[in-house]
């Protein structure tokens, strides 16, 4: 069978590509989570300027495609900053640019998730903490965010899966991750388009399924302790 033959013969290149995909996803998701918490807190803060900054950021990201965002960051930024001696090459090339784009993109969605999670916690929890003399920040950290986390977990995991698949779009700037690897293989063997793209799909399916399974287990554990 051709599919099996493709899978076995391309195994090594796909393993390298898979590792790029996973690296890109992990780096971006960690950064996106940090961005999400920061901008989520901005959105619920009573400080107007922070609220605005956050709303503009989320608005721009949600209102433009990831592909365009990637181009702006990789090509646009490089061109604009070239007079100042900046090149993506200096800081890791397309991989870094892709990670930045994906982080900013997922970060905006995470911010919305964090906002929703915080707003789902009864206002009385914050009031009780404040009435004991805890500062806003301490009350957030010790009481509100831990409770919000349980509510947010399913949405966070969903965003992880979306972002994992979005790494596929980053292939466009020349990172040899799963999709780019597929393109290269097809370019060298045009008659095998179907088995090669099916192979790519299988890799995505496997990592996404593994991730959702892990997520389910974590979710069950966490809600058990609740």
């Amino acid at each position: 069978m051709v599919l099996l033959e493709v899978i076995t013969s391309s195994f090594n290149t796909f393993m390298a590509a898979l590792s790029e995909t996973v690296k890109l996803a992990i780096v971006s998701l960690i950064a996106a989570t940090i961005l999400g918490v920061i901008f989520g807190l901005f959105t619920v803060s009573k400080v107007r300027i922070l609220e605005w900054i956050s709303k503009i950021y989320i608005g721009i990201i949600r209102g433009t495609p990831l592909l365009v965002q990637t181009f702006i960051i990789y090509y646009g930024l490089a061109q604009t900053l070239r007079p100042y001696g900046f090149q993506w090459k200096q800081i890791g090339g397309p991989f870094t640019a892709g990670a930045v784009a994906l982080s900013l993109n997922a970060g905006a969605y995470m911010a919305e998730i964090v906002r929703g999670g915080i707003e789902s916690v009864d206002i009385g929890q914050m009031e009780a903490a404040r009435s004991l003399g805890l500062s806003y920040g301490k009350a957030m950290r010790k009481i509100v965010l831990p409770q919000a986390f349980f509510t947010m977990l399913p949405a966070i995991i969903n965003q992880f899966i979306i972002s994992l698949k979005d790494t596929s779009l980053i292939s466009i700037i020349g990172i040899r991750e799963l999709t780019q690897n597929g393109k290269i293989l097809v370019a060298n063997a045009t008659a095998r388009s179907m088995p090669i793209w099916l192979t790519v799909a299988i890799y995505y399916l496997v990592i996404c399924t593994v991730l959702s399974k892990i997520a389910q287990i974590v979710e069950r554990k966490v809600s058990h302790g609740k």
Partner: protein
Amino acid sequence: MENKNLSEKPVKISVKGLRKCFGELEVLKDMNVEVHEGEVVCLIGPSGSGKSTFLRCLNKLEEANGGEIIVDGNNITDKKININKVRENIGMVFQHFNLFSNLSILNNITLAPVELKLMSKDEAKKKAMELLKRVGLEDKANVFPRQLSGGQKQRCAIARSLAMSPDIMLFDEPTSALDPEMVGEVLDVMKALAKDGMTMIVVTHEMGFAREVADRIIFMDGGYIVEEGTPDEIFNHAKEERTISFLNKVL
């Protein structure tokens, strides 16, 4: 209650000309109240009269729009005041308990003293156990709030406030969300506190409690103090028409 000669005691809370609006709606119009150390004041009145809002202004959960609130010598309407420091000394008990649902009962109580570095973890734990004993919940230290009944939750909430050793306790309808059979256990804890000389301001619909425990009753309606006096003066010899008609409805 025994005669405490309260007017000779220092003033703990002094409110002058307090105004509070929610948008267009003025819920507190020129409130003037003085509370002395060790005094138990019960705020009664129809819902929407501003009792809870008044109480929440006293620890700045609501920001006053006008007037002056002085708690223990600190003017909390002053923007520069460190409100967190003032709040350490004012306990508050809420209608819906607001126990921290992510923490065990013990950690609910020890959180603030430990976080605010008033006690070590061990000291806080020791104090928490004493307090739980005092409110009859020493066997519940390691359970989570959702495993407690309403009355138990409220007693735990009182213990949580007491862990900060406050001078003043505010109670915002502490028994209104409870099943009738659990009201008594919470009121008993409050009575014991009053007896120990705690300065207390209680928004309540429990007229029996107010009559028995309060040194002074304040009847509010429409954002004003309509009438105030000893329980005897209010419950047996009310002068204002609105007070009499309210009491006729609830007694």
